[in-house]
Structure formats: C-alpha cells, structure tokens
C-alpha cells in the first residue's frame, strides 16, 4: 500500500470522513472538520502507525493531508 493510501486510511478512521474528501490539498480544520483535539489524535495515529514521534512544532505545520505525506516521506518512514 502506498504512503498516501495508508495516511488516507488513518484519516478516514479517525475523522470518520469519506474517502473522496481526503485529497492531498484538504485542510484538516476547514475541509475535514477536525478541531484541535481531533488533530492531536490524528498525529498520535500517524505516530503509532509509522513508528515515529512528531514534536509539537512540527505537528503544528502539518495542516493538510499533502503536508503529512510529504513530512512522512522526508522522515523515510517504514512503508
């Protein structure tokens, strides 16, 4: 499974959104309706799934689906 698909799957699971909503451009807050607690839970979900820790400053920058994918790719996570 591609990195994009895995990230999308986690987002669908945590936020209960439809697959077609999860575009790379989608903003977590405005497009996917995630409040700050939702977003934190999502970050924890990525951490668990990809076996890494994302610090708070870094997490604050991950405002879109695409930014998460890009960040995880840079971290060279286990795919």
């Amino acid at each position, binding site marked *: 499974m591609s990195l994009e698909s895995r990230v999308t799957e986690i987002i669908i699971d*945590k*936020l*209960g959104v439809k697959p077609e909503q999860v575009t790379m451009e989608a903003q977590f807050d405005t497009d996917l309706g995630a409040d700050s*607690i939702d977003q934190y*839970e999502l970050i*924890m979900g990525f951490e*668990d799934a990809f076996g890494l820790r994302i610090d708070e400053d870094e997490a604050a920058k991950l405002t879109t689906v695409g930014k998460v994918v890009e960040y995880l790719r840079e971290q060279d996570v286990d795919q």
Partner: protein
Amino acid sequence: MYKRVVITGTGIIGPVGKTADESWKNALSGVSGIRRMSLIDPEQFTSQIAGEVREFDPLDYFDRKLEKRIDRYAQFAMIAAREAYEGSEIEGRVQPERLGVIIGSGIGGIATLENEHKVAMERGVGRINPFFCPMMISNIAAGRVGIDLNAKGLNFATVTACATSGHAIAVALDMIRLGRADAILAGGSEAPITLTGVGGFCQLKALSTRNDDPETASRPFDIGRDGFVISEGGAVLLMEELEHARSRGADIIAEIVGAGMTCDAYHITAPAEGGEGSARAMVLAIEDAGIKPADVDYINAHGTSTQLNDINETEAIKSALGLEKAMSTPVSSTKSVTGHMLGAAGAVEAIFTAFSLREGILPPTATLVEPDEGCDLDYVPGRARKADITYALSNSLGFGGHNVTITLKKYSG
C-alpha cells in the same frame, strides 16, 4: 404558588428493552433481562450475571467518529434522551434557551478510564487518548445531550450513586416549579459492566451469586435474595411546565407533584436502622405533594434484592405511611426483571410509575416467591395487577446514605 410539572416524553434503553414502551411491556409481563455476562469474561467474578443491553450496535445511533468518542454510558443517555425528546414532539415548540438537561451517572465512563489507564501503564502517559477526559467525566452525558438536541438552558449532572436519576428528577421538578426552564430532560445512565466495575461490587459482597439461575437472581423481598444484579442502560424523562405542555397540545403521561430528599448520615453503604432516612424522604415527598400518607396508592420500591435494603425499605414504608396503611398499599420492585441500573434506576422506575398511573396497572415483583421474614407488605408478587391509582411514590437510595422519593400523580387535567 409553584408551577405544575408534567411528563410529556420518556426514553429507556436497558436490559428489558431498547425503548420505554418495550421495557414497560416486559416489566409488566415479568420478562427478565438478566443473563450470563457477555461484555466481559465472567469467569473470575463471584457474580457472573448482569442485565446488559443486548444486541446493541452503537452505529445504529451514531456515526463512527462520534461513536468512538462517547463512552457507552453517555451513549445510553443520548439514546434515551432522543426517545423522550422525539416522543414529546417538543422540537420547535420550546425555546432552546428554556430547555434544560439534568442527566447524571453514578460512576461515569469507567470503561474509558480502564482502557486509558492500561494505555498509560503499558505505553506511557503520552499515549493517552486526547479525548479521555471529556469521554470519562460523569457530566459529559448531560453536555452531549445538550449538543445533540440543541438544549441551551440549565445543564448539569447529579451524582448520588443509585439515587442519581431520582435526584435529577427531584431537582428538575424544582427548577421548573421556579420558572428556571420550561422543560428539562432529566434522568441518568450507567455502563458499569467492566473489570473494575463488576469486580468492585463483587468485593463489597453486594452482588447476587445465583449464577446458575440468572433470570430469578434479582429477587427483591424474597427469602432467597442474595444481592443485587448489576445492570446497564439509560433513562430520561421530558419534564415540562404544565401550561407550556397544554398550550402546545402535548400528550401528558403523568404529573410529578413532589419530591423528598434526605441523608442517613449513618454509614457509607448500609441503610440507617429501620430505613430512617428513607422514611423521612417519603414523608417529605408526600408533604411536598400536599397530600397525606392515606392518599398513597402505590410505591415503586428501590427494592434492590440485597439483605439490608429490602428489610429496611420495608420498615421505612411502615414508618412513613403508618403500619395499617403500609400493610394495605401495594409496593413492587421492577428491579426483579431489570436488575439494578444504578444511576439510571430512579428514572426507569419513575417512568414505570408514570405508566402505572396512566394505564391503571401495577408492575409485579416478578421473581418474588417466598417473602422473607419481616418483608410482609403487599409486593405484587409474580403477576401485574390492575389498580386504578391516583398517587404513587418512587424511591431511590444510594451509597452515601442518599435518599430520594418522587411523588407522581395521575394526570386528570
């Protein structure tokens, strides 16, 4: 003169039904909701039976995101509140700012607490679910119902163990009487069937160990009773100011005319000698309704099936009504079929009592075969009984020595 308060909606989800009507029919027919526990492995407990909400799929009521973020106890409250709200047909006919919510829980989200404690111990506190606190707290059911039904008026929880929803109703009565709201969703909910929930009550020796015969294990007032049966669920009443209900042509189920609240100030779990505190609550509820003990036609007892409760509650009824009146007044415990829904019990039983008044029929103490010595009232054993009644009491008592009695009246305009 206080404003008058009526019931215009009811909701129950519990061991004997997923609606108030279904639960009532089963209570009348004496259909037990008690089975071997399935939510957790019963093997290690002394009590292996429970009144669970069976065939419960939260996705029938909530979308997936919401479902994961609401503890089972609060889900039950929301489901019962929706039923009461929808049944009352009050939507669009009450100002949101005048619709209140008083819904409590004896314990709150204990399953959530257990799960996240495990996470913290195994993986560190940094892995605790960020939704943990707002899932677990015992007021979140009231908050969730407020969001769900756009109820923007007064909103809080009562927490008095097994008297929780009795207090919710008593306080809602006064709030409406004083004009602080036009209508209030009042009740309670509980989801205690977890490792520490059941384990804790087992350690108190409070639960029945009649594991080989679940359906008759909860036997209030019977010589063979050996503890209560732990149950789960939620129950909510839509209580409404009389003129508000009349002006919108609401179907009025019954009137709530009084409440009495006391404390034993005696022991954390055992009732006071002779049910002294409970007797005072009944007397206060009778006085608050402006009636006399002679006017009481029926009592829905707390009747838990523990040694101490049933004998002391019997004494309390004698002391509150006077011996002669007590001996001729029917008293029954629907916990015989529901088990003990803890924080939801008082609201379930107030709803059953309201239905009794409306329909002229008393639910039985279904499992009572041989009354214990000293349990010598008319407990309506075995079968429901027709009785045209006007005034009824509903008792709820909780650990901590909390006693509350609600007085209900048949609605006759």
